[in-house]
């Protein structure tokens, strides 16, 4: 009898537990007084942290496959050793641009993105060329392969630290023929910022960058802002880019501004074919691209980006790769070249983040 009673008690209790707690279940159809949710607060001891997200910003590209073309323009290669100055006509230069960027850690305390990029420039030149620089551009082109990691660390609900570390292999290198590790170019950013509200984020810091062609240590400024009407905004990351954004609607955006692109390319093939008295030769390339862009959602998370503008040459000079040049160093480069300006176009298809 005792055993049966025990069993009855357990069964009853279990049956009660099996019932759904009606106080926690709100059917969709049920009418609710939403005003009660206005007067809510965080539980005691709960801390909040700012996020990197800014309302209205263009969607983050997780994967991007693009094609870039510019030209025609002329290259006047400077005298070098026994080679005289030579003018070449570049019908166009073009290449694929691949980008991948994944948020691998994303929580209240940390945001860590891992990225990879690949860019190539092939030079279509008519006629024969004999100058070493023009020859290697024509025969090998230029490539950039890199990986990067970006860290966003909120300190509290307003302030954060931002840092990025990038390593790139740049040069006149063929596919799958990576240069030695000591030829890696390392760029870095460290910045301190604050998020005023969900439409504005600002950061100021220092960067080690090759965007000017050679290595530079210069300040970096980030300012992303969306006006209250959500139609207009800025996406600024100086010196890399400054863009004004117009949002037609959530699936169509227009941008105008400029970008600064640059890198130092190891000229391995040129060294191989034209022995040099230096340990390394590098092409210091830097260009300012005025930009007009249209980005739109093709289908759900697939966005297309179309960019066009005028490419202004800032630097296209060959230097001793072992030499560090400060911003104020005006000693002549080993090969001083003149690169004419040109129109460019760029189109990419992108998988964007939620």
């Amino acid at each position, binding site marked *: 009898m005792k055993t049966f009673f025990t069993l009855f008690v357990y069964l009853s209790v279990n049956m009660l*537990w099996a019932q759904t707690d009606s106080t926690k279940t709100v059917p969709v159809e049920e009418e609710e007084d939403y005003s009660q949710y206005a007067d809510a607060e965080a539980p005691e001891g709960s801390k909040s942290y700012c996020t990197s997200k800014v309302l209205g910003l263009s969607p983050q590209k997780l994967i991007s496959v693009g094609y870039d073309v510019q030209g025609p323009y002329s290259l006047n290669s400077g005298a070098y050793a026994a080679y005289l100055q030579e003018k070449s006509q570049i019908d166009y230069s073009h290449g694929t641009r691949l980008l991948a960027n994944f948020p691998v850690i994303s929580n209240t305390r940390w945001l860590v993105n891992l990225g990879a990029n690949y860019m190539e420039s092939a030079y279509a030149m008519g006629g024969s060329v004999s100058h070493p620089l023009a020859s290697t551009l024509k025969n090998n082109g230029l490539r950039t392969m890199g990986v990067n990691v970006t860290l966003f660390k909120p300190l509290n609900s307003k302030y954060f630290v931002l840092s990025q570390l990038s390593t790139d292999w740049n040069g006149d290198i063929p596919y799958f023929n990576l240069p030695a590790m000591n030829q890696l170019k390392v760029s870095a950013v460290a910045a301190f910022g604050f998020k005023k509200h969900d439409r504005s984020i600002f950061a100021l810091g220092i960067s080690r960058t090759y965007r000017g062609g050679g290595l530079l240590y210069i300040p970096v400024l980030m300012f992303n802002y969306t006006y209250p009407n959500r139609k207009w905004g800025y996406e600024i990351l100086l010196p890399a880019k400054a863009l004004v954004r117009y949002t037609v609607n959530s699936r169509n955006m227009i941008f105008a501004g400029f970008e600064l692109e640059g890198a130092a390319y190891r000229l391995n093939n040129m060294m191989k074919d034209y022995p040099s008295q230096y340990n390394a030769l590098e092409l210091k390339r830097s260009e300012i691209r005025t930009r007009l862009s249209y980005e739109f959602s093709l289908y759900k998370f697939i966005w297309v980006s179309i960019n066009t503008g005028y490419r202004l040459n800032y630097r296209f000079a060959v230097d001793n790769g072992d030499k560090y040049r400060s911003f104020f160093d005006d000693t002549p480069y080993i090969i001083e070249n003149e690169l004419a300006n040109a129109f460019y176009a760029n189109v990419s298809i992108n*998988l964007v983040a939620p």
Partner: protein
Amino acid sequence: MIRKALFLKLIFAYLFTSLYAFSQSTDADKILGLWEVGSKKARIKIYKQDERYFGKIVWLKEPKYEDGTPKVDKNNPDEALRKVPLLGYVNLKGFKYIGDNKWEEGTIYDPENGSTYSCAMNLTDENTLDVRGFIGVQLFGRTDTWKRLVIKK
């Protein structure tokens, strides 16, 4: 005597499975309540229906347009749904508790761009919910951290 021992074993087995089921149920229900999204623009009430978890928008920082009319789901790809009010909109659907403070198999709708994403949620502590919207696999996604709110009495 043997029958009694068997009977007791059955009772213990039943008791054990019931306790386990109860603890799973209470763990699963830890997600219920009011949450504020990372941007602090909206508050979502997560509720349970038919053993699945849903969430609806119950508060908006800016509930009305400049002309005073209530905000609607104007970015919905389905034109017929563009006049549905955002307040009360069920934007989290179909989550299942899989254990270890994780809810998966759901979707999240972003009224900002009219897109629906696969979604997984992770209760990192009692008052913090990591909501990851993603495309296909979780690597292709973004996490928004939500904070629990309690209604003032």
